[in-house]
């Protein structure tokens, strides 16, 4: 199993560790709920060094990224970050990712840990026809996510990094005092304001240790999942898979079908014309049982019409809520449904899947 550069720190700090995406990762330190609340109310720091980075360079970089990616990077200014997907020919999702645009000839892609090998092979397999270089930089970069309403101040006070000039989904390249490259973006996966800092291991370890000394809450992947879920953000493997298209996931706004040919576009156009057969929706479930990934969603006659993709007892909202992939006929707001939890069924109703309104900085 792979380890991040902060692995010794996590174990020394007594984190509960568990495998995720091929890495031995911290799930929690003090507890998922306390860490979740720290991010919502103040600030927390996550080791997200498991994420993968791929650099695309060359005269045809813009054309190539636009061919493999659902977003349109051509009109973006340098310094902009955009979220989107890579699709297969059927419109299913190979991965969801962030694309950082340095200029028309250089893009920095951030991909999911669990998909690194698959993605790198996928990207390289399509690169041959373009004048581009694909550089797998996963081993070079480590990454911290500093998230919460106090993130900007923490970055400044503890790490001496000024993020105040960064708008939401923008980034800048920096250099550490000892000469290492760093990338700082105003991005995250929590529904709060925050930053992500990419740098080589020595910089990340030093930054983590400074943040710990300053009393910033260490946060594990446990609350990363509860936080993103409340904000209605998808997790690859749950709401997006090789079989689920961005339209089905309710992420159509990130698939620019008006853009010239990209992989999966034809399938999306057909799905749009025919209407999607199933859709990711939000559900509120009555009673105490918690809907979990894979549980069956039933119509009022007890017929299976879908499955839960993610579900929790929401820490911020104190309700049992879920995202579920259901037959589109049952996707309208307020549709009554049921969820099978072990031996019992519980009433549920379709609600908006952005359960918590994010507090992003404009």
């Amino acid at each position, binding site marked *: 199993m792979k380890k991040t550069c902060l692995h010794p720190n996590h174990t020394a700090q007594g984190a*509960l560790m568990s495998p995720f995406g091929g890495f031995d990762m911290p*799930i*929690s330190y003090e*507890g*998922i*709920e306390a860490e979740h609340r720290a991010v919502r109310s103040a600030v927390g720091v996550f080791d997200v060094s498991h994420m993968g980075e791929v650099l695309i360079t060359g005269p045809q970089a813009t054309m190539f990224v636009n061919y493999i990616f659902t977003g349109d990077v051509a009109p973006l200014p340098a310094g902009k970050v955009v979220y989107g997907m890579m699709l297969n020919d059927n419109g299913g999702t190979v991965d969801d990712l962030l694309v950082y645009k340095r200029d028309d000839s250089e893009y920095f892609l951030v991909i999911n840990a669990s998909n690194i090998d698959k993605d790198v092979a996928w990207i390289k397999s399509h690169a041959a026809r373009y004048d581009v270089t694909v550089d797998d930089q996963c081993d070079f970069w480590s990454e911290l996510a500093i998230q919460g309403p106090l993130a900007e101040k923490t970055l400044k006070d503890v790490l001496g990094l000024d993020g105040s000039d960064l708008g939401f989904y923008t980034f800048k390249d920096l250099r550490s005092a000892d000469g290492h490259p760093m990338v700082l973006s105003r991005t995250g996966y929590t529904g709060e304001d925050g930053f992500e800092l990419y740098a080589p291991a020595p910089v990340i370890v030093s930054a983590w240790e400074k943040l710990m000394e300053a009393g910033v809450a260490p946060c594990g992947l*446990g609350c990363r*999942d*509860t936080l993103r879920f409340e904000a209605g953000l998808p997790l690859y493997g749950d709401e997006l898979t090789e079989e689920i298209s961005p339209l089905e996931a309710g992420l159509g706004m990130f698939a620019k079908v008006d853009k010239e040919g990209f992989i999966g576009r034809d399938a999306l156009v057909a799905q749009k014309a025919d209407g999607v057969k199933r859709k990711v929706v939000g559900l509120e479930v009555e009673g*105490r*049982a*918690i809907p*979990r990934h894979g549980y069956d969603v039933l119509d009022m006659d007890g017929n299976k019409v879908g499955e839960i993709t993610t579900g*929790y*007892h929401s*820490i911020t909202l104190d309700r049992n809520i879920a995202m579920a992939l259901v037959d589109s006929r049952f996707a309208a707001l307020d549709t009554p449904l049921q969820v099978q*939890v*072990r031996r019992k069924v519980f009433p549920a109703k379709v609600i908006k899947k952005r359960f918590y309104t994010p507090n992003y900085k404009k």
Partner: protein
Amino acid sequence: MTYYLPTHEYARVEGNIAYIGISRFAAEQLGNVVYVDMPEADDDVTAGEEFGAIESVKAASDLFSPVSGAVVEINEHLIDNPRLINEDPEANWIIKVEMNDPAELENLLSPEAYAEVCKAEKH
């Protein structure tokens, strides 16, 4: 006497009654308990089979019964306050079972043998 399953349930035996709950090790591993899915009084439980589930923020874990018998009582305090299990998992048993085959206890782990299981899981 208290007996354990390798899946971290205990049976504290008094006469032919077994109080069934989860071990302190399991409670610590789970973190805050948010829901306990319990059977109803008079339901039958079977040794080695699932009788309910315990849910932390992160996940649902099945509960397995160390013994066979009839549920004579469920711990109703856990309905409104599942976190009692975090405070004291041994005092806060989940179900009380009237055993129909006390010989089954011989298949369970002693406290010493169970401690070895926990030690192995920590590494």
